[in-house]
Structure formats: structure tokens, C-alpha cells
């Protein structure tokens, strides 16, 4: 490549970057717009609802990193939320609260650690747990893998609900400092979006997606499927851990029973309604279902639409959500996004030329060259 070509490349770099990261950029901006709108409205209750939805988004993105890329259904990811949530509680509860109920080792019992490092440490703990349980489980495929993760969840849930010294057993652990608002949740959504996207574009993500499409072909291509799944599983667990951490610092209370089947189903439903095979789908699922829930909640409470107060009977929200989910799936079995990301709308602008030589090569007398050599003995 000569000088002018390089200059050209430098000029094009921002555009290429925009195109490469188009999906997470657009999705982040979308979330930002929502948060800004709610922030401007000054509605504190809605802000709480949006925060909860953004936390769910972090969890669903975490779930997507594994399920979306590997195509293996997993029922056990609530484990990592729970590990993250309790992990961060041990680190960030005030020693006063810890002294009453928990019997923690000195370094935890006597200190309250700063929030961000604690959050990361707790999520890393979740990732470590995922690594350890993942080593044997990632060898399994299909439904056996899904059930194996469910068994892990069953084990951890039972264990945590009897581990009184550290978890207060099945009782709710109160008093966790509350600091997570819309902006902090949004920040983590953006981090999760970029991390998930960078992973999915990386060689690890590529290899895993190949194995999702065809296990045999992927193995033939030298892809070590269990190892690739493990990479995704651990990264996925990290963000599930962050989800649990955020929930703990949002509610101020955590309880083992909240990391069981209900949340598992809700997160899976969001992912699959949105479309499990794309990051965009994962986020769209969260937005659509959360929005529906909010609208129906308002309707149950009686929603004033100017001329009349609309209302539906209490309990109708759950029925409607379930019904709508079935209807969406009937019409879009691949989810709302059908496995596609946000499309790049500017045509060939910023097209990533993978190998400038290759384009030339296509017009090159390359094959003729080969043929000639063949001709010459």
C-alpha cells in the first residue's frame, strides 16, 4: 500500500468504525433516548420502571452472549445473578448490618468496600463459578446441557437458601446500599452491548456461532466446541453477575427465591420474543415486553388518556402478557428481529474492505496464471 492509500484509510477510519460498531451504537443511542425522555418527564416512578428494565437488559444481554451465540438453551443463568448479588452484598453492606445477621470472615465483616470495584469483583466471582461448573457441562449438547444448567441452578439455590451464615438462608437480605438509577443502569447496558458485540465479532464469537449453525462442520473446521462454549459461558456469567449486582443495589434487598424459575423464564422469554440470535433481538425483546408490562400496569391502575380513564381488571396484565407472547411467537417464530442486527442504512459507505488485495485479485489474471502453470509441465 502506498502513502495515498494509507491517508485514505485514516480518513475513512471513523466511518469504518461507525459501520463496524453500528449495532451497539444505535442500540445504545436508542436506550439513551428512552432514558432522556423519562428523565425529562421527571416521573420518578417511571424512572424506576425504566431502571428495572435496563437491569433486565443487562441480564438478557448476558443470557444472549451464551444462548444466542451457542444456540444452547440454558436454564441456569439465574445462578450467576444470585452469586453476583450475594457477592456484592458481602462487600458493600455496612458492617452494622452485617454484624446482626451474617457470620462473615473478618475482611468482609469489618469493611464496606467501594461500589464499582465490588460490583466487578462480584461479577468476577460469578464468572469463576461459571468457569468451574462450565468445564464439565460445556461438553454436553442440546437439551442435556440445558437441564445440566438447571441442575446447577437447583444446587446453588438449595445451597444458598440453607447457607445461613453467609446468605441469611431463605430470608431476604436487607440494607444493601441503593445507588443504581437509570444512568448507572444505562451505563452498564452500554458496556454489556459493546462487550457482547465485540465478543460476537471476535474469533471466539465467530467460532461459537459456527458451532451453533452446525456442530459437525464446526468440529471438522477445528473448532473446539466445549472450549468456545466455555468462553461464552464465562463472559455471559460475568454480565449475569453484573445484572444481579445492579438488582441488589436497585432494590436494596435480595432473596434467594428471586433467583429461581420466574426470573429465568422472564429473561428467556424476553430473549426469545426479541429473537435469540441477534444482539438487537435481545434488546428489542426487553424493550417490547417491559413496555407492554408498564402499559398494562398503568391500565390496571386506571390510565388517564385525556377523555376517559381506561382500565382493565387486576391480574389482567399477566394474562395479557402471556397471551401476547404466544401471539408474537406464532407470527414471528424467530423472534421480532428474526436474528438480524440493526441494518447499516448508508449502502456502501464505510464498507469494510477485508483485504484490499482480494478485490483486485478477483479481477486479476490469477487463475489464468495458475492455468498457465498447469499447462507448463
Amino acid at each position, binding site marked *: 500500500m502506498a502513502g495515498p492509500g494509507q491517508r485514505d484509510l485514516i480518513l475513512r477510519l471513523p466511518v469504518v468504525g461507525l459501520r463496524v460498531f453500528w449495532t451497539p451504537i444505535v442500540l445504545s443511542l436508542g436506550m439513551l433516548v428512552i432514558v432522556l425522555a423519562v428523565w425529562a418527564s421527571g416521573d420518578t416512578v417511571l424512572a424506576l420502571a425504566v431502571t428495572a428494565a435496563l437491569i433486565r437488559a443487562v441480564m438478557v444481554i448476558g443470557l444472549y452472549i451464551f444462548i444466542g451465540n451457542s444456540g444452547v438453551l440454558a436454564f441456569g443463568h439465574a445462578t450467576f445473578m444470585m452469586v453476583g448479588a450475594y457477592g456484592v452484598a458481602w462487600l458493600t453492606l455496612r458492617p452494622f448490618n452485617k454484624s446482626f445477621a451474617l457470620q462473615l470472615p473478618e475482611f468482609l465483616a469489618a469493611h464496606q468496600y467501594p461500589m464499582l470495584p465490588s460490583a466487578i469483583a462480584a461479577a468476577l466471582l460469578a464468572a469463576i463459578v461459571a468457569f468451574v461448573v462450565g468445564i464439565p457441562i460445556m461438553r454436553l449438547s442440546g437439551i442435556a446441557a440445558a437441564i445440566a444448567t438447571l441442575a446447577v441452578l437447583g444446587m446453588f439455590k438449595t445451597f444458598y437458601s440453607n447457607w445461613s451464615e453467609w446468605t441469611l438462608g431463605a430470608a431476604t437480605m436487607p440494607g444493601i446500599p441503593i445507588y443504581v438509577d437509570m444512568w448507572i443502569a444505562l451505563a452498564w447496558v452500554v458496556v454489556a452491548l459493546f462487550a457482547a458485540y465485540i465478543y460476537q*465479532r*471476535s*474469533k471466539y464469537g*465467530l*467460532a461459537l*456461532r*459456527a458451532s*451453533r*449453525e*452446525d456442530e*459437525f*462442520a*464446526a*468440529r*471438522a*473446521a*477445528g*473448532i*473446539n*466446541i466445549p472450549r468456545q462454549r466455555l468462553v461464552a459461558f464465562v463472559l455471559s456469567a460475568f454480565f449475569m453477575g453484573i445484572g444481579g449486582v445492579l438488582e441488589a443495589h436497585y432494590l436494596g434487598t435480595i432473596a434467594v427465591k428471586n433467583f429461581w424459575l420466574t426470573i429465568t423464564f422472564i429473561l428467556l422469554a424476553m430473549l426469545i420474543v426479541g429473537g435469540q*440470535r441477534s444482539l438487537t433481538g435481545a434488546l428489542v425483546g426487553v424493550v417490547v415486553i417491559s413496555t407492554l408490562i408498564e402499559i398494562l400496569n398503568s391500565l390496571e391502575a386506571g390510565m388517564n388518556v385525556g377523555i376517559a380513564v381506561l382500565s382493565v381488571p387486576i391480574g389482567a396484565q399477566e394474562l395479557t402478557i402471556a397471551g401476547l407472547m404466544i401471539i408474537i411467537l406464532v407470527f414471528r417464530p424467530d423472534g421480532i428481529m428474526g*436474528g438480524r442486527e440493526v441494518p447499516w442504512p448508508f449502502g456502501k459507505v464505510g464498507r469494510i474492505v*477485508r*483485504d484490499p*488485495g*482480494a*478485490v483486485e*485479485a*478477483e479481477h*486479476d489474471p*490469477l*487463475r489464468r*496464471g*495458475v492455468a498457465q*502453470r*498447469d499447462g507448463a509441465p
Partner: protein
Amino acid sequence: MMDRLARRLIPARPGAASLALAGTPEDTLEAFDVTVHFEGLAAVDGVSISMRNGEVFGLIGPNGAGKTTLVNAMTGFQRPTRGRVVLGGEDVTGLSAHELGRRGLARTFQAVRLFRDMPVIENLEAAAVGTGLGRREAARRASRILAWMRFAHRADDWADTLPYGDERRVGIGRALAMAPRFVLLDEPAAGLSDAECDELMGLIAEIPHVFGCGVLLIEHNMRVIMGACHRIHVIESGRTVAEGSPEEIQVNPDVLRAYLGTKSADARG
């Protein structure tokens, strides 16, 4: 000249030297006395083959003769009941498929098995990445191979939108993206038109030179087999019937009886 071209097409891989991938002329792939039993029945029974780098080696036989089973046994998809598979002097029997892939054994499938929900280029990239390449190197290798196949214009198309013939082409491209020492092609011409077959034949004939590897070709289409292969191995009911040059095979009475006799319709040259 040829080496230079090969190097241009296949950029040196990091660590390629230590893995000794692609390109040593004395490289061999051998199967000794390979036998595969399915519930007591021998699908492959004591077959031995030996091929070397730079060679297009044909494996033919009627339907159900055990060709694919033999390929499965050689590529780690089926553990042989007996016998050994040796790659470049190293006994690789019983290694898993992905380990063999990393050691330079690539294959295609009868059912093609593309990564359907991925673009064409990523199909190739995934295979390149599977052999340990970084993303950037993989992309470069993939686009060069597509260019060589005259398929670069469809690099960004989704694999599940391709017509059948192109699917097979991408399948071969994917195997080659592993920069293999040996590539095992399982009926690449099945279902292709005559024109497509001719083009395919050309591609296959070039593979050993361009990629510096050996080719094991399973095919029903005699025209492709006879046109592309240097040596041909015939099996029937899991057993070796004959081996030799295309000319020898064409006149071998055992082959005619075993193969042409049962599958004359398919076997027209």
C-alpha cells in the same frame, strides 16, 4: 513460481512452522487396516489407503460401500473399531474431529452443512479461525480463497440464500480456509450440472498446487473422478476392490463387476 503463488494465497500462519501445516511434499495421510463396526456389522472392513501431498486421490464405490464411514473414521467423527490413521507419520487414531482439523485434516460433507445463518465470508473465516488464526488474518485468507473461487462478489450474502451449486462451492472453500495438509471432499459434485461439474473439476485439480495439500475425493460422478484424480481406490461393501491410476481402474474387471454392474446408471463416464 508455484510456491510463491501458494504463499501469496495462503499467508504464513502464526506458529505454522511448529504445527507443520500445509506444504511439505513428503507429507502423507495413511489408513492402515481401518475397520468400523456398527452393531456388529462391518461398514468398513480392513481398508488401507495411503496418499501424499500434491495428489488427488479418488475413493469410489457404490452407495453404501462405506466411503463416508471411512472418511468419518479418518477425520475423527467415528472411532475405528480396529486399525490406525496416520498423518505425516503421527498416529492420530481416535483423536477428536477438531484436533484433527487443527492438525491439518479438512473435510466437506455430503450434506454440505454450511453455517447457514452466517454470511459466506464468515463461513470461511470461522474455519480459518478454527485452526488458530486471528480474526484479521482469517478475513484475509477467506477473501483470498473466495477470490480464487471467483466468488468474492457474494462474500456478504447469507449462506442460506445460496443456490445449491454455490453451497457446495462454499463448502469446499470452507475446508480450504483451514489451510489443510489434506482435504477430504465428500461427493462435491452431487447434484451439480455438467457445466458446474467441469468448473468444479478445474478447481479441484488446482487445489494441490495452490494450497500445497493433498485431496481425497469421494465421488459418484466418474467424469469428475477420472478427470481430476491421479490415483483411485475402489471399495465395495467395506472392502478394498482395487487401486490404481484412472486408466487401470477403468479396465479393471473387478471394478467393472462390483461397481459398474450395480450402479451402471450413475457410473457413466
